[in-house]
């Protein structure tokens, strides 16, 4: 091995590193290490002058390798590798030693931190002479994008991409796009009608020629890599030909099965087995529910829908269909589920009438809902008093520890709507803290305080129907400690609204796995970086937006959808993209063709060449996990950037100090 000249750059990161690690000492020590030609420290290595140090040393001192001891490579490895490249050094001859996240920030004692910094840095100094120059692998990019989830986030992202002239596949699991927002009546704090602002977007998405709508469909498999994804989509059988159906609704009227709980109304109304989920549905097409239709469940039916349907769109022989779509980027916007309050037994949800979930109340207050927008109890009477219980399932160690961000505001909206419809009705808000952080939110809260709503600071203890006095008899009683007054109260009411938190979708984990990223501890999709890359995922080319990432309100969702669309566009608008060259290779001179690696590759990137009798890595398919390297007893596959000898050298370096 020729004598290498290593440049070592120790970053102060202001006081983030230098406040704990003795950077002068580390620099002095580094200068004495084998192969080190230059060792420096600087206040902010990531700044332009910091990067220039590397470039200058390449020119003036002829350094052939460099290591920057600074923050996590996740943060600035691209920055410094680019600086090295600008200075004329192959970027892969630069390594980072993470002495911030893994050292200065987590260590109490300064001396210990300095010693650890040397070990972390030593590992990289030791490895560097073994680094090889590598070239990124350039792959073509498919210009199309898939958006998964047709709520407001998905619709927004799809429209933005279509505007930029990209072909978009919009996949929605339900028969219609619209998502949760389509169920809402008004939106806080402006009290815009949700339908009025959403419906135009839905219909635009339906008409947009660049958008291919795949409603009533689900993604089953994702293969490939950035710029080149192959996605399998299962188009569920609607039993209605989508091109022939006009959405007239005559089949719905004719259908004899009429008592199916209507999902869109959260079960508060009934629909037929042949149905259109709601009047503004996009695509406005009928669907026949295969679990309820008499014909499809093998029972006898005179099939009046067939006669009712003018165009003859109904097709009971339709089958699920699987299609494969090729795209360059994917935006996952699969939304949330309302936290089901049933396990919180003390609130008697599902047990007592007129204890409603927030979405049920959304439907009741909605003009197109089951009561035509009249706020009514189950007996058809308007309530004289309503209690709205905050933080149901939220901020609770037993259920969801986090704050769902939107519940305080929608609870205030409910109070306002009740007061608007029923000025005489008493409304109680039982809250822990009132969280009104958004634009115009605090003002809305103030406005509600002047609308005669009773604000009780205290988490409700119980909802019961055991009345202890004539005013309580036959009604619901909410027991709550008013922590401001220091007394427990019994609130006799006629309706209780449980302001449930937003929960990750019950199949979020499987979905995340399908797309190749993870979930946070709370179950929502994990972003690549909580601050700087909130819409990217660990899988290049796959983005997330909306409430699938974390609960958020509509403006934030729309903003995030735009960001995800921009991220996808920045990728697919290029003809090619570079992928990491840290992939495996097999030396045919050494491979004995034993087949061990062939079956182990998770991405089927290794194939056996019968003619040569050796295994071969398909460069484009290899993702660089290194499983084959670890598994081959002959030591034949090696992974660039993570060669065995490089890892050995790191181990030696880490333990040499």
């Amino acid at each position, binding site marked *: 091995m020729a004598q290498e000249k290593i440049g070592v750059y120790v970053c102060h990161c202001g006081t983030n590193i230098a406040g704990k690690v003795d950077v002068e000492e580390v620099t002095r020590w580094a200068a004495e290490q084998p192969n080190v030609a230059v060792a420096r420290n600087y206040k902010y290595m990531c700044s332009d002058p910091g990067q220039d140090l590397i470039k200058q040393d390449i020119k003036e001192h002829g350094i052939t390798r460099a290591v920057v001891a600074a923050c996590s490579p996740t943060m600035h490895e691209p920055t410094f590798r680019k600086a090295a490249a600008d200075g004329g050094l192959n970027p892969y001859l630069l390594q980072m030693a993470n002495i911030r996240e893994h050292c200065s920030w987590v260590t109490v004692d300064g001396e210990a931190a300095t010693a650890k910094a040397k070990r972390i840095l030593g590992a990289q100094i030791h490895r560097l002479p073994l680094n090889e120059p590598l070239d990124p692998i350039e792959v073509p990019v498919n210009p199309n994008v898939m958006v998964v989830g047709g709520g407001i986030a998905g619709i927004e992202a799809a429209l933005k991409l279509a505007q930029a002239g990209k072909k978009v596949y919009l996949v929605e699991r339900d028969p219609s796009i619209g998502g949760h927002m389509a169920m809402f009546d008004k939106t806080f704090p402006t009290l815009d009608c949700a339908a009025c602002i959403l419906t135009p977007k839905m219909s635009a998405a339906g008409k947009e020629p660049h958008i291919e709508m795949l409603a009533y469909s689900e993604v089953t498999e994702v293969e490939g890599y950035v710029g080149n994804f192959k996605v399998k989509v299962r188009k569920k059988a609607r039993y209605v030909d989508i091109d022939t159906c006009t959405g007239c609704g005559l089949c719905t009227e004719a259908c004899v099965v009429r008592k199916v709980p209507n999902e869109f109304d959260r079960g508060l109304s009934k629909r037929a087995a042949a149905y259109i989920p709601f009047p503004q549905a996009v695509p406005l097409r009928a669907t026949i529910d295969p679990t309820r239709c008499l014909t499809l469940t093998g029972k006898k039916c005179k099939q009046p829908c067939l006669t009712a349907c003018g165009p003859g769109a109904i097709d009971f022989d339709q089958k699920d269909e699987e299609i494969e779509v090729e795209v360059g980027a994917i935006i996952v916007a699969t939304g949330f589920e309302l936290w089901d309050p049933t396990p919180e*037994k*003390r609130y*008697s949800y599902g*047990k007592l009438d007129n204890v409603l979930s927030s979405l049920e109340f959304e439907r009741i207050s909605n003009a197109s809902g089951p009561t035509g927008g009249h706020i009514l109890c189950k007996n058809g009477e308007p309530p004289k008093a309503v209690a709205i219980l905050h933080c149901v399932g939220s901020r609770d160690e037993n259920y969801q520890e986090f704050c769902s961000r939107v519940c305080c505001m929608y609870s205030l909206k409910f109070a306002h709507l009740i007061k608007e419809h029923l000025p005489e009705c008493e409304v109680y808000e039982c809250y822990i803290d009132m969280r009104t952080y958004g634009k115009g939110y605090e003002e809305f809260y103030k406005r509600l305080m002047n609308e005669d709503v009773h604000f009780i600071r205290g988490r409700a203890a119980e909802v*019961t*129907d*055991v009345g*202890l006095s004539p005013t309580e008899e036959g009604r619901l009683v909410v027991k709550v400690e008013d922590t401001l007054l220091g007394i427990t109260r019994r609130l006799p009411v006629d309706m209780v609204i449980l302001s449930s938190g937003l929960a990750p979708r019950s199949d979020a984990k499987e979905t995340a796995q399908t797309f190749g990223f993870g979930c946070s501890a709370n179950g929502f999709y994990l972003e690549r970086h909580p601050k700087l890359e909130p819409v990217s995922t660990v899988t290049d080319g796959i983005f997330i937006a909306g409430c699938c990432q974390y609960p958020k309100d509509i403006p934030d969702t729309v903003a995030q959808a735009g960001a995800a669309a921009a991220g996808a566009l920045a990728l697919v608008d290029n003809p090619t993209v570079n992928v990491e060259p840290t992939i495996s290779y097999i030396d045919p001179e050494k491979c004995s063709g034993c087949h061990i690696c062939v079956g182990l590759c998770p991405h089927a990137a290794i194939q056996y060449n019968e003619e040569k009798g050796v295994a071969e890595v398909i460069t484009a398919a290899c993702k660089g996990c290194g499983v084959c390297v670890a598994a081959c007893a002959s030591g034949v596959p090696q992974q660039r950037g993570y060669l065995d000898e490089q890892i050995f050298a790191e181990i030696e370096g880490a333990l040499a100090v």
Partner: protein
Amino acid sequence: MRYLYYPGCSAESTGMAYDISTRALMEKLGVELVELDDWNCCGATSYFSVRELDSFAIAARNLAIAQQQGDEDLCVICNACYTTLAKTNRYMADSPHVREQVQGALKAVGRRYDGTKPVRHIMDVLVNDVGLEAISEKVARRLTGIKVAPYYGCQYSRPIGSFDDTEDPQTMDRFFEALGADVLTDFPAKLKCCGGMMMLTNATGAVRLCHEILKSAEDLGADVIVAACPLCEMNLEGYQPNVNKAYGTHFHIPVMYFTQLAGLALGIDPKQLAIDKQVVSCAPVLAAIPA
């Protein structure tokens, strides 16, 4: 089937009927109960509130004896005893500090305990070991038509909930369904506080709590409330006059230990079940059970 049996202090005084009926019921079911030698106070409520560690040590002495006396599980009837003993096990397992201190205390009286003796509620034994099917087969007089309000009380399933759902226990419901009773499965007050020890220090508050439970049972038309704890039973039954006085009500609801009512269903003579020791007459219940 054989168990070590810890009766607890009430079994010798106010809760005598619970002990008597338990022994009769278990004998009928062919379950042998071997009373724990030289048992002492379980360390319940008052101790726990004031000197937790002492309380663990007191409880652990019983468990140490049990471990020495036999391999059988330790069976307990009182909810408070059950929670205290089980909690001692749990704390000994979770906290090296507690374990060390308790073992030190036991050493001083020449005993050893490793924290692993299984503590079982009598209902746990009945439902999970004896089995509802086996019990159902032995029913002599089905409780058909008897509206039973199952009152679990606080410490039956909380905080540990080892054999039933913490917030929504169901075992007593299933048990009486197996005996043919008309169980009020949605009895909303089934976990409500009975007032407990507060009956002595803050009677107004405790009476208010009893009122809510009794009212809830009456609203549902309960023929009888069944309890699984001597203190609950005493408060709900013995203080009905106080409730009536404070709230102008006219409660006269029979309250029984669940073992008593179960014993009746299995055809045990009421005297052997100490039914005559109840304050509120159980005659209407006895009369209502079909022959």
